[in-house]
């Protein structure tokens, strides 16, 4: 049963990644696109965690942690650039 549930959740996260991609392409303003990227990296962490559960190994959690760190830092950096016109003043 668990394998079927993992496949269903894979499909759900794939659909939500496609929706985020649509917002990233269409999105009328720059903050919309940053928000879409932010959501995309969170969904990618979910995908990696699910893949690790599917393979039965917890080796992929380091990659998920790295993506979480770098995604947060990049979102804050781009927002700072939008706000100030400069990242480090």
């Amino acid at each position: 049963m668990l394998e079927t549930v993992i496949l269903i959740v894979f499909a759900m996260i794939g659909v939500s990644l496609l929706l985020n991609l649509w917002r990233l392409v269409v999105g009328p303003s720059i903050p919309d696109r940053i928000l879409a990227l932010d959501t995309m990296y969170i969904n990618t962490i979910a995908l990696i965690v699910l893949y690790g559960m599917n393979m039965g190994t917890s080796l992929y959690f380091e990659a998920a942690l790295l993506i979480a760190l770098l995604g947060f830092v990049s979102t804050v950096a781009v927002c700072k650039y939008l706000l100030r016109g400069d990242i480090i003043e």
Partner: protein
Amino acid sequence: MMEWVISLLLLLGGSLILVGSIGLVKMPDFFMRLHGPTKATTLGMACLLFAAMAYYGFYGEGVSVKEILISMFLLITAPISGYMLIKSAIHHRLDSIESTRGKDNIEED
């Protein structure tokens, strides 16, 4: 029994992530679109990571702290990035529909 709990947590997490992304696409303006990723998706990720923790604790190599680390990190950083995004949206004076303007629409009593 444990399999049911893990499956329920996985399905809940997946549906919450899907709801967050649908909200990102369907909402009319940016100030509403911010709600989906900052609330629903973060909760979905927390559910998924709890499911992973239960899975590895039950089938794998024992309970590890890494899942708690990721979920704590996401729960802490999601409000900060939401705050930065809403600040830059206000700074850029994005278009908003009439009902998200806030104070002008509060009825006087």
